[in-house]
Structures are given as C-alpha cells and as structure tokens.
C-alpha cells in the first residue's frame, strides 16, 4: 500500500528545501514597503470602485437617497447657527454664518473620515477574510468616500458664503490646495485609527469624545480670538493644531474679514503641508507594519 502513507515527521527538512527549490514563498508574508505601495497602486481601481459603492450604499435605505449628502451638512449648519448665532448671539465676528459653516464643514470632513476609518477594518472582516488585497485599500477608500461627501457639502458652503454677501475673488482658488492637503492628512489619520480600531473595538466608543474635544480646540463654533486669552504655550499648541490650520486656510480663502489666529499666511501653509506630510507618510508606514494582523483572531 504505497499510496496511503502517513506523512513522515522526518520530512521537515525536505519540505523547507523543496519549497526553496521551487521558489515558493511563505504564506501571508508582509511585502516590503515599496512592494506594498506598488500593489496598492495596482488596486487603485478597486479603491475607487469601493469608495463609490460605499457612497451609494450608505443612502440606499433612505427615501431621499443621495439628497442627504447635501441635506445633512445644511441641517447641521442650521442647528449650530440657531445656538451659536441666535441664542448665544456672537456679534464679534462679521458674517458669522459663513464663518461657522466654513469651520463646521471643514472640521466635519476630518471628523467623519476618522469615525468611519476607525471601523474600516472591523466592519469589513468578511471581505478581508475572504480575499487577499492590500488592506490599506479599505481605509483609503473610506477617505475617498468622505472626500466625495465633502465636495457635495462644498457646493452648499459656496452657496451659503455667496448668499451672505462675500465677494467672489481669486483667493477662492486657494481652497483647492487647502482641501487636498487636508485630504492627505485625513488619509494618514484614517490609516492610523484603522489599525488601532482593528485591534481594539473600544476605540469606537472613545472616538466621538476625542473628536468633540478636538472640535472645541479648533475654533469651529466661536471666534478664534478667544484662544488669545489662554496662556502662551496653549495658544502655540492651538496654533499648530492641524484642523485649526486647515479651517483657517479655508476661511482665509473664502471670507474677507474673518478673525484668524495665525497672522502669517506662509506659516499656515507650511504647517498645513507639514502635517499632511507627517500624517500621510507616518500613517501609511504604521498601517503597513500591521498588514498581517488584519482579519485574524
């Protein structure tokens, strides 16, 4: 009975040599950073298609469908305006509605990306356990979905800013690089929280509080001149807050007389680009290092 042999434990050495001779690779090995980036690039069609699919799917159960892309930011702006514009009546800022909605929409871009990114691994376990693809595709497509949402809310924002009497100037074009820098920053942060969220699901509960604290430190709802009352080191800290920087860049582009915390525009751009670079590269490397862990357990 030569055909029914139990596997001999002595073949251990042979197995490894056999694999080496035929150039087999160890299953589930993490590729090098360059190779990983290359594979990710090869999956760009999947990333785009998945981002689109998520956008469509997120409204598929709502009767108004895609209209919510515009309605949600509008409703948000209305609620905050009622409280901070009418009830608490902040008169120190010229054109408070435009000031508020700019801050709100820019902040919301990062906020919703981070909240969705925390679950971008844990909510796709089925896909991860079934198919092999660079896992960074998932957090990146989350970022793209949020970017598409942002474009819809930017249409609303431009409408609000124009209606409230701001003139259309060449400076508006600065909004484009500012949003792109913020998108890169978001991608990095999303990659970071995606790995953290994949490890511990508790992060999902904590994240809303972190984001709310961040919002109060970014001068979204009130004048940034309030930060001048803080001790010097705290003001510096707030000045380098990436979200405050991106909000100020957008306000600088769209609004004529908005109060700004950072007086130097060059510094704003440098800090904004610096954050995008640090978060983008750092987040990518951090996520790549955990590539083998996703979907296991």
């Amino acid at each position, binding site marked *: 009975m030569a055909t029914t042999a139990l*596997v001999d434990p002595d073949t*251990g050495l042979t197995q490894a040599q056999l694999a080496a001779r035929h150039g087999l690779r160890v299953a589930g090995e993490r590729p090098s950073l360059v190779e990983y980036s290359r594979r990710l690039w090869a999956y760009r069609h999947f990333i785009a298609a998945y981002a689109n699919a998520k956008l469509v799917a997120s409204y598929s*159960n709502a009767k108004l469908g895609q209209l919510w892309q515009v309605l949600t930011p509008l409703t948000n702006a209305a609620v905050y305006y009622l409280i901070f514009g009418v009830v608490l009546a902040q008169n120190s800022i010229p054109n408070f509605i435009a000031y508020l909605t700019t801050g709100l929409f820019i902040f919301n871009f990062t906020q919703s990306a981070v909240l969705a990114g925390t679950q971008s691994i844990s909510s796709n376990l089925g896909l991860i356990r079934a198919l*092999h693809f660079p896992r960074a595709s998932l957090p990146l497509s989350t970022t793209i979905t949020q970017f598409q949402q942002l474009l819809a809310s930017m249409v609303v924002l431009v409408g609000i800013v124009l209606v409230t009497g701001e003139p259309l100037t060449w400076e508006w074009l600065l909004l484009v690089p500012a949003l792109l820098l913020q998108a890169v920053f978001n991608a990095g942060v999303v990659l970071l929280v995606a790995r953290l969220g994949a490890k511990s699901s508790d992060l999902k509960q904590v994240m809303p509080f972190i984001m709310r604290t961040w919002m109060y430190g970014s001068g979204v709802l009130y004048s940034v001149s309030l930060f001048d009352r803080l001790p010097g080191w705290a003001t510096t800290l707030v000045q380098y807050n990436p979200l405050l920087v991106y909000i100020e860049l957008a306000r600088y582009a769209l609004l004529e007389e908005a109060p700004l915390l950072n007086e130097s525009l060059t510094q704003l751009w440098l800090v904004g680009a610096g954050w995008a670079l640090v978060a983008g590269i750092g987040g990518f490397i951090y996520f790549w290092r955990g590539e083998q862990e996703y979907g296991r357990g």
Partner: protein
Amino acid sequence: MVEHFDAPTEASATMTRTQERIPTVVVDDAHIIYRVHQGAAGGTTPVAALRRLVKRTHAPNVREVHAVKGISFTAYRGEAIGLIGSNGSGKSTILRAIAGLLPVNRGAIHTQGQPSLLGVNAALLNDLSGERNVVLGCLAMGMHPDDVARQAAGIIDFSGINERGDFASLPMRTYSSGMAARLRFSIAAAKKHDVLLIDEALATGDKGFRKRSEQRVRELREGAGTVFLVSHQLSSVRDTCERTIWLESGVIRMDGPTDEVIRAYEAYANSK
C-alpha cells in the same frame, strides 16, 4: 541530495497529469494556535476590565485552542485535494493558514503565488446590486477593469441568479442565502488562481449549479492550478478530488487516493 530526500514523498503521493511535479503548497510541520473569546463569562465588570488595561493582561475569558498540531504535506500543480474530518478537526483552520489569513505558530507554509480562499461566508456589500458586487469582487481579486467589464455578464449567467427574474440589478440583501453563495462562488471562480481553496461552497445551490461548479473546478485545475476542497459532503469530494487528506483533532490521519481515504473515514465515523 535534495532529490534523494524527495523520493519517499514522491512515492506516497498520488498520480498527476504532468510529468514533472511542481509543488504549489508546501506545509511544513504547521502548528496553529488561536485565541477564542468566550464572550461574557467572568471578570467582565468595568473595574476588572480597567485593571486588565492597566496591568496589560489578557481577558480571562480568552482561551487558547491548539487547532492544528504539526501537519506536513505537499500539494502539486494540477491536483484537487479534498480535506475531510469531523467538526473541529482543523480543516478550515489549515485552509485559512494556507491562504495567509492565519499565522502559523510553529513550522511554515510555503505557497506559489497568492492562494485564494473561497468560503461561503465571503461577504460582499449587501446594500448593492448583484451586478455591482460582481464588479467589486473581481476588482478586489486584482482583475483589470477591462477584464471585469468583459466577464461580468458571464459571471452572472454562471451563477444563475437571473433564472427567476432580473435579480442581478437588485440589492444582495434581497437574495436567498443559496443565491448569494452561488454568486460568490461564481465571482471567485471567474479568475484563474494558482491555488484555489474552497470551503464548503460547492454544497450550496441546486443540482444544476452543483454540476456547473464541479465542472468549473475541473477547468480551474486543468489550467495548472491546485484546488483544495473542504467539505462534509463526501460525494462532492469524491466527484472532484482524486487525493484526500483526512484530518482528526489537528493531525493528519490519512493522506492518499480519495476512494481509500473515504472508505477508511466512513468506517471510522460509523464505528464511533
């Protein structure tokens, strides 16, 4: 020297179509231990959880399961290998390890290319139509958009979900479980895989679809691939595989031609 050591393995394995036997999967004394969360057992109070966080210890309701205890075998190009054994014998675990989705704690698993695991629980997006899921699934397997566009209609035809009305344009959450499983199989089978791992997927679907899928598995195999099939349905193993590995509590009990292994397995199962 290497050839000399190869000799016993070559003799023990089964016949293949090709003259030169090229290994595609080499499993070398693989041990797999995984942690199971038992759910809310003891020590789940907030205070206990906080203490664990501070002390960085694992939750007490996590237990280690030694699912695979030293498995070695070699699979060759063009082979279809069935994996049988009772529940919890480690069949699905070893499959997931070959796919690179579970780490081995000791030993190693070497593979040619990237093995693809096709399981019945391969979830796609339930809120999207079958058509969109086909496109997404194919892109996720790394296919080029042009190929996807060319093959999409064929995949839907193969799955047979349109046999009773136009289901392809409806969201997948409206599908019956059998329809969804058929569509998933059709997507995964659309690509040529070096190594295809199938977990119970052939058991789904009606008789007509089973016939088609068995035919498809045969084609994939002839396209110089290796197919692994985990199944409790011995008939589908018998129909598609000529070599079978019988696992029992994490070790190989038998490895050889399907007929002999299944006969021994049935004798064992009946005597229990």
